């Protein structure tokens, strides 16, 4: 009843009047929400006493920003969005979309020029502008590059869509090379290029690819078989500790331990699978969550084997298939064999290609399995378990193979993680990791490899990119650390994506076989499974 009354009143009021009113409401709500969050803050003074710090100015800023934002949205944003849906009377055409207006040729040229100019001046920026403005300039340069890339992607979207996998794989394969070359150009030497590439290859490349692999592994359990597994990090831990323990104690090579770690994780997948076979939905989620915690607690408390919270250090590096190593002291160190300058970047680049290969293996196996009876049975299990049984599918073994296959890839990723870090401790395998991987799977669209890869890029790459926003310190003061807002942005991104695309970036499902024509199945028909 109340809704109808207010809409009548809205119809009478002009947009500006309505915007004023709604801005007032929004301001009042944000005042109520934030008065305790932002207005007051507890802190410790010099004698370790708890004191209240009052921040009314900041509170006023936030409230005003909310009100102004609501005002602008209602007064100008909504009419603009509505106008986009109205076709021109004369031509019958819809107005240009926002994207088309945003991605224009002159803007593109400007962006490229700005980016190029700032690249050329990269070395002398600090001297020219001072450290403050140089930070902004670098941020502008990053924005210009992102805009240019987005422009290209927008205008070639049909081509990209058609050749997504090939383009994606070649881009990933070329990524370290491009990074090294660009940085070498900027610094003027190959050594500088290698040194500078560490951050980009390791923090961005390897980090994102580990999560891609974990999410693709979990995708088998959740996306295909529909079994909600909240303890996936347990298999990651099993893989990591398998490599760490067997590698340090017995000196076995990574190339032997990688499959061994996968097998061990798969074994634990079956061990988890057996007791939870009959559980569904929430109950399954709770038990798998507990399983993840049990593994972590065992790792903490079984000191004789795992060295407890102190973890295991000195985990051997991966060798280049036994031909070359990445230890400077070894006689067959890669720089000595190939007669090049010593650099720690070689190992990171090697690891990048290693994890890329593991990711592609995961993708290949997943794609293949989906077309095999076992993969179809997983998806059928997600759709309707009772119908599966009526068709003679052994749901017990089907569920167990899903758990085991998913866990195996988790184990691979874990042993890679141990090799990359050189150190493992139970702290790396907390529930939050499971939650992040699950969030990536859900955001990407359950069952879709591409969507999940994009989600991992956005979530992990995005949070890593926060570390690059140091210039914000100059705006918000020296104790402002953008990384701390990681989880806030993570949560906001999830809410926005779930509102905008409730089934994830790629919600539709690719059929595994077709008679005449392969048509994607809309997300409205697929089910999420009941656990």
């Amino acid at each position, binding site marked *: 009843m109340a809704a109808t009354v207010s809409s009548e009143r809205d119809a009478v009021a002009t947009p500006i009047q309505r915007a004023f009113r709604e801005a007032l409401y929004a301001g009042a709500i944000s005042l109520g929400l934030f008065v305790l969050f932002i207005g007051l803050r507890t802190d410790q003074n010099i004698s370790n006493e708890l004191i209240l710090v009052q921040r009314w100015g900041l509170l006023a800023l936030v409230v005003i920003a909310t009100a102004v934002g609501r005002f602008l949205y209602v007064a100008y944003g909504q009419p603009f969005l509505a106008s986009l849906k109205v076709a021109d009377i004369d031509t019958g055409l819809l107005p240009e979309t926002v994207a088309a207006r945003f991605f224009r040729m002159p803007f593109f040229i400007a962006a490229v020029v700005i980016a190029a100019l700032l690249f050329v001046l990269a070395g002398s920026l600090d001297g020219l502008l001072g450290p403050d403005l140089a930070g902004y300039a670098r941020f502008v340069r990053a924005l210009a590059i992102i805009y240019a890339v987005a422009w290209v992607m927008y205008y070639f979207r049909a081509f990209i869509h058609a050749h997504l996998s090939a383009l994606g794989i070649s881009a990933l394969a070329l990524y370290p090379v491009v990074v090294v070359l660009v940085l070498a150009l900027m610094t003027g030497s190959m050594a500088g290029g290698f040194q500078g590439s560490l951050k980009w290859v390791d923090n961005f490349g390897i980090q994102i690819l580990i999560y891609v692999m974990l999410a693709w592994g979990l995708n088998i359990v959740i996306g295909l078989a529909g079994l909600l597994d909240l303890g996936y990090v347990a298999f990651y831990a099993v893989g990591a500790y398998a490599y760490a323990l067997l590698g340090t104690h017995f000196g076995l090579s990574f190339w032997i331990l990688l499959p061994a770690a996968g097998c061990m994780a798969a074994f634990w997948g079956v061990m988890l699978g057996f007791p939870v076979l009959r559980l569904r939905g929430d109950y399954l989620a709770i038990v798998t969550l507990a399983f993840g915690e049990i593994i972590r607690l065992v790792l903490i408390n079984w000191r004789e084997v795992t060295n407890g919270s102190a973890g295991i250090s000195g985990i051997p590096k991966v060798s280049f298939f036994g031909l070359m190593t990445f230890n400077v002291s070894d006689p067959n160190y890669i720089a000595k064999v190939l007669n090049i300058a010593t650099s720690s970047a070689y190992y990171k680049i090697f690891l990048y290609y290693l994890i890329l290969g593991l990711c592609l293996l995961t993708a290949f196996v997943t794609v293949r*399995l989906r077309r095999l*009876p076992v993969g179809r049975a997983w998806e059928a299990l997600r759709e309707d378990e009772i119908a599966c049984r009526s068709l003679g599918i052994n*749901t017990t073994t089907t569920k167990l193979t899903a758990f085991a296959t998913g866990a195996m890839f988790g184990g691979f990723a874990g042993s890679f993680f141990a090799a990359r870090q050189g150190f493992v401790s139970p702290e790396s395998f907390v529930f939050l990791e499971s939650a992040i991987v699950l969030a990536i799977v859900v955001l990407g669209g359950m069952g879709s490899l591409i969507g999940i890869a994009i989600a991992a890029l956005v979530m992990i790459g995005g949070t890593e990119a926060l570390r690059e926003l140091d210039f914000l310190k100059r705006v918000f003061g020296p104790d402002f650390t953008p990384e701390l807002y990681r989880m806030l942005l993570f949560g906001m991104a999830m809410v926005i994506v779930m509102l905008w695309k409730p089934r994830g970036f790629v919600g539709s499902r690719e059929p595994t*076989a077709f*008679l005449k024509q392969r048509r994607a199945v809309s997300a409205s028909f*697929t089910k999420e499974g009941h656990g």
Partner: protein
Amino acid sequence: MNATPSSNDFILQVEHLSMKFGGLVAIGDLSFQARRGEITALIGPNGAGKTTVFNCITGFYKPTEGMMTLNRNDGSTYLLERLPNHEIPARAKVARTFQNIRLFSGMTLLENLLVAQHNKLMKASGYTLLGLFGFPSYRQASAESIELARHWLEKADLVDRADDPAGDLPYGAQRRLEIARAMCTGPELLCLDEPAAGLNPKESAALNELLMGIKSTGTSILLIEHDMSVVMQISDHVVVLEYGRKISDGNPASVRTDPRVIAAYLGVDDEEVETVLTEVGDEDVIEQLDTGPDSAHGPGNTASMMAGPVSDSVEHANEGERVTVSKGASKAAQVDARAASVASKPQSAAKPAAKSGTAKAAPNKPAAKAPAAKAGSASKGKDTAAKPTAGKRGGRK
């Protein structure tokens, strides 16, 4: 009743099947046979236990008692109550459909039919290993399975929509797809749970044709159906259930004229029943008229002349068994009661000796035969099945 031919003529033999959910007897001592290559229909009013029989046959329920024997065409015999759920379609070759359609709605029609061929393809793919490495044997099996799927899609008139999601199909087409999917498992006995429910006459006719086509391939069909046009047209043999008990069994024509079946479906004129039962001295009717508590279940009033024998309540206590439907509910039993009263009235109105006589006066009452057939279930059969019928009422006259 049946001149028992060699057991191999029957694809399915159900003997003394009972299914109890706590106190509720969903099926009580049901026996029937389904002949090979025939369409056997299982009909009855809502709540008669038809779907429960299906769930027992296809392993979704483990029956409380009884034996279900499936004789395959190659001579092998399976006891369905001993097989795990998923092995019944896989080994005994029994496929089923569901009353509320259970398709894989997010998968295409073709994929639905490929999932049905899971076990065959699983073997061909070397339990995934050979298939993973793309061995040609799997590729061939895969092509064959797609051909089989195409065959059944054509039969079900769905081949044009093969690449659409199953959830996108209209209701009638979903029914046909479910049958096609069941057929892709290569069954010897196909159990259909209300395939014509919700279909219009045209779709219903198309379904009849599909079923006759399936029958002609040698697959036996067990059918639950409410749509009498389907049942009477295509079935060779009809079994009628009411309240979990068989009330009639025979060819469609004989079942159609069976007064017990008519009563079960259409009911008996209430006044007529009441007068008859009151004349006979039926405890239920008297109780209902008195609106007093049910003496068998309420507090015992053994001092009363109207109360049943003590053994009655003792047995209830022992077995925790309770018939939750009201005693006079079974229309078929009312018909029996009427027949019994007609038989006993000319003799004398109140004679304890009539007890056994009236019981025999209902010759086609299945439950009354149970005591003779099976000592173990004798008391139970009497207790649950025969209670509302003439057997006990006679004793209280």
